[in-house]
């Protein structure tokens, strides 16, 4: 075996390495600066995200594999890596004042964030099931800690423990699935699996293995029926972290799922498409319907994030290039939209006590018109109204479902979209059409980094809806190179 490390090897792990290096820098420098200057380390973390983002962007046209095929170097990896990096970078901005006001702003917070994103980026480029597993652990373990970071808030601690226990189960399923897959095919290399499956076809052991992998990743993306942890964890975790989890962990989970199912197991799609399609339908239905009855915005967005996993699963179930490109675009649009929505929630979270119920948002337009307008854009995008990124994303996924002749799934998709309009509109109704009850006016906090996040994500949501051309070209290239035959 040739153990020489080539430049492709280095390039293939460049973005996650940058993130990990910055994470360690944050930890080390923290020891040498005075306590009152430590919040400034957030900016170091932000620089880390920017550098990693530039690196990922620069690598976007590279093709190859590193470390004997373990790490893929392709546009697909960079696109999803960028999604995670963008999510991480914005989370630094939304967290800055949030953690300082609550006195939970230790530098570890940002180091953990960087580690978690490095896991997500690694996941996007994993070309080997063991790397998938390692990346999953690397992204999850910091998230368990981050979910509990609002200590001594019992809700936050409950969130962390719940997330950890169920996450550990999910890892177990995934690992067992990997083992069975290895037993069936004698390889855990995704390229080798793709090649071998064409020759030997499917076998019961392989299908059970693939099923368990699906369960493990289903936990991470919060697909029904593996979603039970989501509402409590999302509600309990610090608000900026909830936003981060809802997009970052989802992007990473789908990164692995799309590569394993859309690429490696593509040849036996007849065996798994129907299962994924049913998961997708169940996820859209359950997520959207339970979201209706929520009285707390954070919880509502948690269920809505379940529902959105269902839409992306539609792209997986379509098992075609359109579906993969659609899922990538959807993740991109969803990242901006949801990070923005959670940034608004963060702005509404007063340090003296968080009230995220609907009445707290009544008459917000009168108190902070800008904030309400941006929230309107995010809500319209989540509903899928034209001229927002969310619409183009949904459009793309419906397109893939119809191409794959999954008409029933597309119809469930549009009907649940109508259901979802109901609870997204409720936010708009409260902000614009109702007056706050006297004494109930929650005033939004006003911090520059937070406002930057909200404005930039709203702008991105709008641009992705009006001139999506370059983003579409990117995701189509990524899908074509991965699935191209």
């Amino acid at each position, binding site marked *: 075996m040739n153990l020489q490390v080539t430049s492709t090897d280095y390039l293939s792990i460049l973005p996650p390495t940058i993130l990990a290096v910055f994470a360690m820098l944050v930890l080390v420098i923290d020891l040498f600066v005075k306590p009152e200057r430590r919040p400034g380390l957030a900016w170091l973390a932000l620089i880390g995200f920017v550098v990693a983002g530039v690196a990922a962007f620069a690598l976007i046209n590279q093709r190859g594999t590193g470390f004997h095929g373990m790490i893929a170097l392709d546009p697909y990896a960079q696109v999803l890596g960028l999604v995670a990096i963008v999510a991480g970078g914005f989370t630094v901005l939304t967290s800055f004042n949030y953690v300082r006001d609550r006195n939970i702003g230790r530098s570890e917070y940002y180091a953990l964030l960087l580690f978690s994103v490095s896991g997500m980026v690694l996941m996007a480029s994993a070309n080997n099931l063991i790397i998938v597993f390692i990346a999953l652990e690397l992204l999850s373990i910091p998230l368990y800690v981050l979910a509990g970071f609002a200590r001594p808030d019992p809700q936050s601690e409950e969130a962390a423990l719940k997330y950890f226990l169920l996450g550990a189960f999910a890892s177990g399923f995934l690992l067992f699935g990997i083992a069975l897959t290895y037993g069936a095919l004698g390889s855990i290399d995704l390229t080798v699996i793709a090649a071998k499956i064409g020759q030997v076809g499917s076998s019961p052991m392989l299908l059970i293995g693939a099923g368990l992998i699906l369960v493990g990743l289903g936990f991470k993306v919060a697909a029904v029926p593996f979603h039970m942890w989501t509402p409590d964890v999302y509600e309990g975790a610090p608000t900026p972290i909830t936003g981060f989890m809802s997009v970052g962990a989802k992007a990473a989970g789908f990164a692995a799922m799309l590569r394993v199912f859309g690429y490696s197991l593509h040849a036996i799609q007849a065996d798994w498409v129907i299962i994924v399609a049913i998961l997708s339908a169940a996820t859209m239905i359950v997520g959207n319907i339970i979201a209706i009855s929520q009285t707390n915005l954070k919880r509502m967005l948690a269920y809505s994030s379940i529902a959105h996993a269902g839409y992306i699963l539609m792209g997986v179930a379509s098992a075609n290039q359109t579906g993969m490109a659609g899922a990538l675009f959807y993740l991109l649009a969803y990242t901006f939209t949801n990070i923005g929505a959670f940034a608004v929630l963060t702005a509404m979270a007063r340090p003296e006590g968080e009230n995220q119920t609907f009445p707290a948002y009544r008459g917000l337009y009168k108190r902070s018109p800008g904030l309400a307008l941006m929230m309107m854009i995010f809500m*319209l995008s989540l509903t899928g*109204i*034209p001229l927002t990124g969310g619409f183009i994303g949904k459009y793309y996924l*419906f397109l893939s479902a119809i191409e794959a002749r999954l008409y029933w799934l*597309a119809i469930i998709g549009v*009907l649940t979209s109508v259901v979802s*309009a109901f609870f997204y509109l409720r936010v708009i*109704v409260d902000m614009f059409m109702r007056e706050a009850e006297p004494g109930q006016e929650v005033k939004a906090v006003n911090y520059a980094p937070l406002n930057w996040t909200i404005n930039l994500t709203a702008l991105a949501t709008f641009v992705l809806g009006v001139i999506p051309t370059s983003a*579409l070209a990117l995701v189509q290239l990524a899908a074509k190179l991965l699935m191209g035959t």
Partner: protein
Amino acid sequence: MNLTNLPLISIVTFLPLAGAIIILFLRREEENNIKQTAMATAVLTFIVSLLFVVRIGPVGGFDLARAGFQYGEKVAWIPAFGINYEVGIDGISLLLLLLTTLLTPLAILSSWNSIKERQKEYMIFMLILETGMLGVFVSLDLFLFYVFWEITLVPMYFLIGIWGGPRRVYAAVKFFLYTMAGSLLMLLAILYLGINGHTFSLTELLANHSWLAGAPQMALFVGFAVAFAIKVPLWPFHSWLPDAHVEAPTAGSVILAGVLLKMGTYGFLRFNLPLFPDAARQAAPVIAVLAIIGIIYGAIVSFAQTDVKKLVAYSSVSHLGFVMLGIFSFTPQGIQGAVLQMINHGLSTGALFLMVGFIYERRHTREMDQFGGLWKILPIYGTLFLIVSLSSMGLPGLNGFVGEFTILLGTWAANPVWAAFAATGVILAAIYILTMFQKMFMGETRNEENKHLLDLSQRELWVIVPIIVLIFVIGLYPNPFFQAMTTSVDGVLRQFGPLVAGG
């Protein structure tokens, strides 16, 4: 610069949006500037849109004899999906476009004093709404059409939800959800057409639609039809309409009844008939029966109302039933009558809503038993109200008669039974409209509060008189309007197959 190639459609469509952007930068305290900018924009849009009719030098004019779409523009928008910004107008869209550009400034003028809160947002939404509506009527790309179609939802939702009556939130959400449910099914149908027809361009789909013979036409037809039927609204999809109308501010009702409902009937004419002729033929009896039920049901329910605005709202269900019946008669007269009746209904019902708004501003009630004997106190108002009512009722010499009569003529040729049933709607309309007029304007002035009302102001006259003039013009000399659409209606029917007997 070559003036003959001026992108006139885009200019008209996006002028209101430009005005909205200007208002965005005005301070909220500059109320007069905001109102004047909005009004100026809407009037300018109307004047520019007149260029489609009146030729000035090298610009403008409309070739009545030419089949197909004029003033076409095509620019790639999202090449990855094969989506273009493709617009163009034929005679049918021309008339509806002019209706829109005419009603919008009148609606803005009518809200001059009645909207006191958040005027800035109000005017911005009105102008965005105009761009959306114009976009619907000029789009020739199915995706673009869908985008405009959905975009009209948002400003209307806010107009009802913020400036509406006591149950405005309920009405706004109901309006939004109903429309969205329909339009998403249409989106799936559009996607199917796009994938299998390899284009989203209506003209290209029509030019090469032999493949559609083998497609699941009925499913696609239903996908489009549900979206449009909800918008029209065709019975039994109408239940959002009374709520939306009653709660909407006056100008919102005017636009809703005047233009938004026509987007539905226009959709049937523009997409359902030409794209899916076989399915349309199969579905015609069902739709005709629903339309007739709507005509009679709308009329009877109107009669039972005590609130004038509700009465006018339900009368829309009845009137739009006529339009649907005309379209699905598949005869030239039926469709021409239907198109003219779309314009007529926009004018008459728009005017009725304006009239109801005028009295509501004075008395803050719309209950008919609060009035009575108004004619003596408000002679001008009473006379104009009578003209508008009679036009809505279909009195010969006024616009409504020409439309309804032509529709019935065309329907008779297609199916005399349908025509017979529909004709009862004309009689019922006379009953509920005359009863309303009698309750409000005749007899003694019993209610003290009504005795000191002021007659219409100059501004209010400016709002209503243009419509009254058109009511007479169309009633007495409808020829130019028919001429504008004849070629286009024949075009629709040609796509549809051989002309039906009696044509």
